[in-house]
């Protein structure tokens, strides 16, 4: 459903452009959880921000990324905006900062729905309450009137997932969705993501440096290193019989079980 070929990304820095992605090819298949591993700065997040047009101003992107028959990189900014949130949604790392502190949960859960799906105010609110129920937020109608600071980190990430699901996207890009959470909350959230995938026929790209999280969820895995993919394969292949020395090094860095 998503085929990326020859992707390069250069982002501006005070010392001139930095080539953070240097030729990435990958394929995400419909219905799977596609894992993206690699240390921070390896280009894994930049790759997907580039597809959505969310890079800092002045960045340069080349290559192609065909999603549902259209090259995302060839779309106009306005067309790409209509893909964002509607066909491809994103869940960010830190739920403490990815929700606006001064807007109610309801406002943040309905504004893009109303923009993308032309829903009325009341219909959007009912839809939002149903989404909150889907991600197991108790008292969804009360939660719509609440502000993010009234929820714990785990609850906020569930709300962020509801925001991502709101327009019934086909693909969800989850960028380190559990990294900022307590270990005890992580498992519940991962289970929820997987259940939602099965229920709604979602495809998920799971970006994480946590190989434990990766092995719990991903069916196929790509390993990023210095802006390139060094290894791609099924979870078993990559995590049990790594062929690239960098992957082996990553695995060796795990604390003994």
């Amino acid at each position, binding site marked *: 459903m998503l085929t990326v070929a020859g992707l390069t990304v250069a982002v501006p820095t005070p010392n001139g452009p930095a080539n953070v992605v240097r030729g990435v090819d990958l394929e995400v298949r419909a219905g799977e959880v596609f894992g993206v591993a690699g240390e921070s700065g390896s280009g894994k997040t930049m790759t997907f921000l580039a597809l959505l047009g969310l890079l800092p101003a002045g960045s340069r992107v080349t290559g192609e990324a065909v999603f549902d028959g259209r090259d995302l990189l060839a779309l106009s900014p306005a067309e790409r905006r209509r893909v964002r949130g509607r066909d491809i949604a994103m869940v960010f790392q830190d739920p403490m900062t*990815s929700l*606006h*502190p001064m807007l109610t949960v309801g406002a943040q859960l309905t504004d893009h729905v109303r*923009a993308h799906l032309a829903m009325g105010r009341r219909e959007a609110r009912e839809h939002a309450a149903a989404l909150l129920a889907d991600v197991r937020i108790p008292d969804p109608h009360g939660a719509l009137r609440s502000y993010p600071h009234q929820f714990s980190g785990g609850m906020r990430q569930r709300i962020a997932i509801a925001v991502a699901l709101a327009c019934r996207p086909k693909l969800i890009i989850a960028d380190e969705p559990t990294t900022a959470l307590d270990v005890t909350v992580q498992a519940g959230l991962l289970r929820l993501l997987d259940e939602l995938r099965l229920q709604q026929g979602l495809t998920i790209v799971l970006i994480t440096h946590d190989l434990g999280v990766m092995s719990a969820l991903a069916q196929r895995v790509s390993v990023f290193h210095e802006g390139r993919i060094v290894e791609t394969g099924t979870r078993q292949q990559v995590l049990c019989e790594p062929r690239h020395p960098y992957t082996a090094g990553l695995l060796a860095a795990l604390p003994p079980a």
Partner: protein
Amino acid sequence: MTASGVTGRRRAAHPLARLLVRRLGAMVLLLLGISLVTFVLTSLVPGDPARAALGPVQGEDEAAVAAWNSRNGLDKPIPVRYLVYLSNLLRGDLGVSQQTGTPVLDDLIAYIPATAELAIISVLLASLIGVGLGVAAALRRDTLLDQVLRVVSLGGVSVPVFWLGLIVLYLGFFVFDLFPGGGRIDPLAIPPAEITHLYTLDALFAGDLAATGAALHHLALPAAVLAAYNIGYIARFTRTAVLEVINHDYVRAAHAKGLPARTVVRRYVLRAALPSMIQILGFAFAGVLTGAVLIEAIFSWPGIGGYAYRAAVSLDLPAITGVTMFVAVVYISVNFVIDVLYGVIDPRIRAG
């Protein structure tokens, strides 16, 4: 998690009222403190109000000075005078101005609306332009537009208002004769019936559009000159406030939701920058309301600045303390309004 969420919501019904009461209490105490400090300081200031009031000839007459002092209560010790002053203050009696011979309260009521009108119009103008320029500069950071706006706002802040006022008056009145040379309204015109004491509004209420126009015509130059400084000041602070917010995760998350860029700026960026902008606008307003002395002098504006100046040079103690209390009330009220607005805007402050 759920339990705390629910109780947090239930408590959220009062906090704004509680914040209001807390701030109001603090306001009263603050005013009391300020009244004490200004009273003691003005009483201890060197200079003899009796001699200043009586003039050089009568001021040499010890008996006249003593009589003047006892008539004005200046022969009593300072603590007693303060208590008398305070009890009068509570009854709305600020004393009688020695230069005008009318109660200070009446003087303030006569002069404040002129300055208030000037302040409201000029800060309104400055806010609209300053906020717009600041947001534009922040969104187009480091482009040519940003550089030009930086120079313009630096210019606005750096140019002395008395110089700009004189130049504008010279060009607008003397050379091109497009604007009146000063005052609130034509000297021969009858001011509109006084309801709010703001000529533009009063004329509007009276249905006298010509008078509204005339009042605005008189306001234009002094308001624009006062706005010039505040435009620069507000634009710079707005730019900083927006830049502080614009790289937050929730802004990127809003873009990732596919919201139009304009909506992201209006709902997500400006909302978060609002608290710091309100503070700037509040202090700009307080500054103009209490510190427009030079502009009022240049444009013969019958405002509180000129009154304060005359009170200071003639050692008119009741008027000086009266004006000082007015300035204190302005700043404390502005702070109060800002605090309450913070609570309205930011739910986290309401709860805290």
